[in-house]
């Protein structure tokens, strides 16, 4: 089986079929449809200190949502590329991670044993596992 990502100097070569790229093109919708995923994407730094959290919010504004949106834009813009620079590869890595979190939320996954209990023929479970494979390969290429 060909590797989907391989190192090429400072860049990452991508070997994905059109069908695979089409799946990745849909990840933005998967993430955006999840909303805050019952709080999973509603990150807080100070969960037990309202004043400190207000200060953190005032400092950050919507920079986290902006950064996550920019990652999705970057991935969409480079989906047909045969080579990714490191910045784009890292954006792909984070979008794939967000999509896995959104899918896990849709599947009601709440504990570490899901890989033994979920039906691997379920399409969303299969996508979750496929995205894990892609992300793991990217991690190895970028390490």
């Amino acid at each position, binding site marked *: 089986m060909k590797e989907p990502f391989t190192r090429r100097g400072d860049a990452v070569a991508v070997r994905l079929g059109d069908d695979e790229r089409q799946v990745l093109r849909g990840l933005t919708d998967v993430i955006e449809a999840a909303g805050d995923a019952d709080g*999973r994407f509603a*990150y*807080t*730094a*100070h*969960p037990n*200190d309202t*004043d*400190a959290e207000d*200060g*953190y919010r005032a*400092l*950050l504004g919507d*920079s*986290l949502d902006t*950064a*996550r949106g920019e990652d999705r834009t970057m991935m969409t813009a480079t989906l047909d590329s045969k080579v990714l620079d490191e910045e784009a590869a890292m954006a792909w*890595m*984070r979008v794939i*991670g*967000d999509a*896995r*979190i959104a899918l*896990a939320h849709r599947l009601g*996954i*709440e*504990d*570490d044993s*899901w890989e033994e209990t979920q039906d691997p023929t379920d399409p969303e479970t299969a996508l*979750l596992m496929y995205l*894990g494979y892609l*992300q*793991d390969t990217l*991690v*190895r290429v*970028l*390490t």
Partner: protein
Amino acid sequence: MSNTTTPQRTDHPSADTDYESDRPWQVIVWNDPVNLMSYVVWVLRKLFGHSVEEATRLMLQVHNDGRAVVSNGPLEKAEHDCHRLHHHGLWATLERT
């Protein structure tokens, strides 16, 4: 980590700056069932420059104990670290040391 027993002098003492004092904060990463172990190790190395051994030790602590302290420092640094972890999809919060 040592605890300071001598009172610390601040240039602009006020109630408003109390929680922004030099008392270190620690950044906690919590276990979640989705993020890959390899990805968590990669993020900890990338963001904090940990060795592969240290990043792996912290990842396993998160996995086995449910949480681990991955960095610490003044509030501003800790909040910046927390923000970067959130951007990478890790569930992170802050605590005073």
